């Protein structure tokens, strides 16, 4: 559309990058948080503080406690699914889940005495994961995120075309040169360093959801699209008998299950309490890169083994491999941290790209919108601030809402989410009212305060904070709060840079050229 291929790509990179960058920043930021979804959920339920003694309770005992609780509280119901998730490296609590007439129940149990740990009502880290791929807007949201992912791939390719002199650019970091130059260099360094990660994470994110993005292909060969899963994951279910039966202790099946699938991560009981009840043991997902779980099923009444699946169809294994490298459940904490850092750099790449758009035009307006240009540029700058600082503050406000909202208000967890969403609106209003650089600085300062005052806020509300987490030996809650404090430090380093820009301290190069001029 422009004179040359490169110019066309530059145009595409600029405009698609701007409009979709607003959305992509929020998607990448919440995706980065999703790496530590379970840790964040745990931190958001400070009543469920774990002690090192909890992790020492043997698996069999945990299963007994969970089974006893479920048999007492969950009803015998056709098609019911009871889930038991014992304590593991990234799952700090003993948790049971079940559904009654479609309504989901989740309860944490103390593994020492079997008592219910009553926690505040929160959606925890799961809300951030959910936002990451649905924008909390269901199917429509997923389709929008999918489209943004395609645009992200286009942005990566057009970005490479623009920066053909890639490696020359890569080794250049003109930190003390003009502001625009150093933003550009930062954008390039971030982009090149994690280019492989960006292609991987964006592509796998797309491939993960064939049912949503390519439903016609499945319907072309499956009358019932659900049967696809059945061709990949063997089902050992038994028909519902509509007759109460005493279940055996599922823990007695542990040795057999462990022999069949090596390690047990979690289990499901189908049709619990019925003569047709089945208990299924699943392997932990951190055993390998592909997110498939070998499983072994037994009758929960007689204890007879119904079947084991340890072999996977190649195509399904590769598909779940893409899921696995997107969600990073393998590789333990080291891998999680690498994904988290790569995610942060990705956010940095998108943010610097957005900033670059306005800096370039502040210096040399391009009148791309005719007479309205100046106005539209400042609107774009306000939306940039909302996209970047609004997203950061929204997550922090979500954390604060979790700490300060009264325990007894109805729909407490929805209010946490409302606070999260409302932050973007407030951020936009603020950005529209203030001059751009001031808006950046004020929202940065606000974010830093939100990060740093969180432990104080917890203390005022009589909740445990950093030091108590440490003293109790709850490494996960400690880790989350320490990371928030560190993020505050990271954000704080940006404040003096904005202040400098406000006071118009000229960079060395422009100062030098002034001397020559006068």
């Amino acid at each position: 559309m422009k004179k040359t291929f490169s110019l066309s790509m530059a145009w595409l990179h600029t405009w698609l990058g701007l409009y979709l960058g607003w959305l992509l920043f929020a998607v990448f930021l919440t995706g980065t948080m999703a790496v530590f979804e379970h840790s964040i959920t745990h931190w958001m339920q400070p009543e469920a503080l774990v002690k090192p003694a909890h992790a020492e309770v043997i698996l069999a005992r945990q299963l007994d406690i969970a089974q006893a609780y479920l048999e007492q509280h969950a009803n015998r119901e056709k098609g019911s699914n009871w889930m038991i998730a014992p304590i593991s490296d990234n799952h700090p609590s003993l948790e049971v889940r079940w559904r009654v007439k479609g309504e989901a129940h989740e309860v944490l149990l103390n593994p020492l005495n079997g008592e219910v740990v009553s926690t505040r009502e929160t959606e925890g880290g799961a809300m951030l994961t959910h936002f990451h791929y649905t924008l909390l807007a269901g199917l429509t949201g997923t389709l929008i995120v999918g489209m943004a992912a395609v645009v992200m791939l286009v942005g990566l390719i057009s970005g490479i075309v623009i920066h053909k002199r890639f490696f020359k650019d890569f080794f250049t970091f003109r930190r003390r040169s003009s502001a625009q130059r150093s933003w550009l260099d930062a954008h390039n360094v971030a982009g090149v360093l994690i280019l492989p990660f960006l292609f991987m994470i964006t592509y796998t994110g797309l491939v993960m959801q064939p049912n949503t993005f390519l439903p016609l292909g499945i319907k072309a060969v499956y009358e019932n699209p659900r049967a696809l899963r059945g061709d990949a994951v063997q089902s050992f279910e038994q028909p519902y008998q509509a007759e109460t039966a005493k279940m055996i202790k599922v823990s007695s099946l542990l040795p057999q299950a462990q022999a069949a699938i090596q390690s047990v991560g979690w289990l499901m009981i189908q049709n619990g309490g019925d003569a047709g009840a089945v208990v299924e043991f699943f392997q932990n997902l951190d055993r390998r890169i592909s997110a498939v779980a070998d499983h072994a099923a037994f009758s929960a009444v007689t204890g007879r083994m119904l079947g084991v699946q340890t072999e996977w169809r190649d195509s399904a294994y590769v598909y779940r491999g893409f899921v696995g490298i997107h969600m990073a459940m393998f590789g333990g904490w080291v891998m999680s941290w690498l994904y988290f850092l790569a995610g942060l750099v990705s956010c940095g790449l998108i943010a610097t790209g957005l900033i670059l758009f306005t800096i370039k035009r502040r210096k040399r307006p391009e009148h791309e919108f005719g007479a309205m240009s100046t106005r539209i540029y400042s609107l774009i700058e306000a939306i940039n601030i909302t996209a970047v600082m609004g997203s950061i503050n929204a997550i922090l406000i979500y954390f604060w809402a979790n700490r300060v909202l009264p325990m007894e208000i109805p729909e407490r967890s929805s209010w946490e989410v409302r606070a999260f969403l409302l932050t973007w609106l407030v951020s936009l209003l603020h950005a529209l009212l203030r001059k751009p650089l001031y808006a950046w600085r004020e929202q940065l300062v606000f974010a830093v305060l939100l990060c740093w005052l969180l432990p104080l806020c917890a203390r005022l509300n009589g909740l445990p904070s950093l030091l108590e987490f440490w003293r109790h030996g709850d490494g996960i809650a400690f880790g989350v709060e320490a990371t928030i404090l560190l993020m505050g430090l990271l954000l704080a380093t940006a404040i003096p840079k904005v202040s400098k820009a406000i006071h118009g301290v000229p960079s060395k190069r422009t100062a030098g050229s002034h001397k020559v001029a006068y």
Partner: protein
Amino acid sequence: MKPGVDILLRVLAGFVGGYGLTVLVNLLWVLTWPGHRADAVYWGTFFPYVVFVIILLLAFALRSAWRAWAWVLGLSALLLVLLALLRFFK
């Protein structure tokens, strides 16, 4: 042509055409895969997105919006003919 109309036509060719072609390639792949239908579906979901990306890039790289539409419509027609033939001979 006004620049606004040109851009709009390209956006439509890139997104609507891009997604349409992705679906057609996916369908053709799934329907011609010789093995089990589950393999057809899984192997068939990995490649088509590349088509989307290429069409989106092309829609903005080509000299005019009409060329972009010519490519999209031409390729769609080709794939539809192949799909029709496949149905006919099955």
